[in-house]
């Protein structure tokens, strides 16, 4: 498919796919902090004001991830940035239960143009992808470059080939190049009311829409 399998001595590059990258989630308002011989549950702001560094207990989950740090930086930065990879129907729930090529083709091509928040990765048993997968650009992780290099034979499972890399870097740059704007500004009053009705968040009209 769209993957290559670089030798362990090959330097880390953008588009390299790793497994067992640690993902950490915190509840900052209810943080289990280790203080001396005891543990307390506390709010981050108070803990940070009282201690530096903070020792806390966190849960870590190993996930698949793909390198987004650009090639020039991957050889010298302390930490490599990666985006999490998950099953396609988890990242894009409308793909759940999609059995027919028509549906999956539409999602992978048409939706990929509309929704710039994920990047499709086809299954490949040699990589370890037994399902359709997707990169979630929302989920960015950070890992020590040195650790990745020292354990690259165990952790790096594949690399995007040239064609896929070109698409990946374009999608990645598009994701970060997006600008927020109030897309409802040119709607007339009736169109605006319809727009607002379909949005979960409160939306204020421009003066000419009132």
């Amino acid at each position, binding site marked *: 498919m769209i993957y290559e399998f670089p030798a362990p001595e090959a330097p880390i590059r953008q588009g390299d796919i790793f497994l067992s990258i640690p993902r*950490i*989630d*915190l*509840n900052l*308002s*209810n*943080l*289990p*902090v*280790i*203080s*001396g011989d*005891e*543990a*307390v*549950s*506390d*709010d981050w*702001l*108070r*803990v940070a*004001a*009282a*201690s*530096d560094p903070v020792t806390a*207990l*966190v*849960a870590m*989950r190993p996930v698949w991830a793909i390198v987004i740090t650009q090639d020039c930086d991957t050889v010298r930065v302390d930490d490599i940035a990666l985006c999490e990879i998950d099953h396609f129907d*988890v*990242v*894009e*729930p*409308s793909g759940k239960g999609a059995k027919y090529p028509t549906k999956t083709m*539409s999602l992978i091509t*048409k*939706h990929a143009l*509309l*929704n710039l*928040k994920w990047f499709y990765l086809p299954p490949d048993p040699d990589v370890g992808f037994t399902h359709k997968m997707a990169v979630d650009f*929302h*989920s960015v992780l950070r890992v020590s470059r040195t650790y990745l290099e020292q354990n690259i034979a165990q952790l790096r499972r594949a690399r995007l080939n040239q064609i896929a890399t070109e698409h990946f870097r374009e999608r990645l740059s598009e994701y970060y190049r997006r600008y927020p704007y109030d897309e409802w500004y040119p709607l007339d009053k009736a169109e605006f009311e319809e727009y607002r009705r*379909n949005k*979960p968040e409160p939306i204020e009209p421009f003066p000419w829409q009132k």
Partner: protein
Amino acid sequence: MTETLKQSIATYDVASHVDADQSPHRLNESRSGYLIRPKLPLNYAGLWPILAAQNASVDLIFTATDLFELQGMSGAVTGGWGLPQRVNQVFGIVTSSPMVQTRKPEPARRISLAEARRLAITALLEAEERRQDERKRESAFWAALEDEL
């Protein structure tokens, strides 16, 4: 619960105290007698030139136990955990005032290691749940858009 501190005056860390107008967040949980320890490293010797309006050139050793407040030239009041009474008296720091009385350190909730682990796992699971809810909302939005097109 005390800490013995020895710090250089050159490394005075202003973040080791808390501005009076930064009220700590309250937690809706049961309380214990636990008090937050002062931030480390903490350099109380750095207070000397502020309070005594002169340069100090020696390191001092203090035990950090008490709550203090300090009113600067601007009139701003700063409070924090730190100076023991014997040092407060030397510096003229007020340790008993309405402000100190109303701004005692908030006790955190003491928990067992098992509870700490449960909190950590819960945080991870809840984050995953929130993320998936957001993905479903996004997906529904784009699906509706495609239907319209």
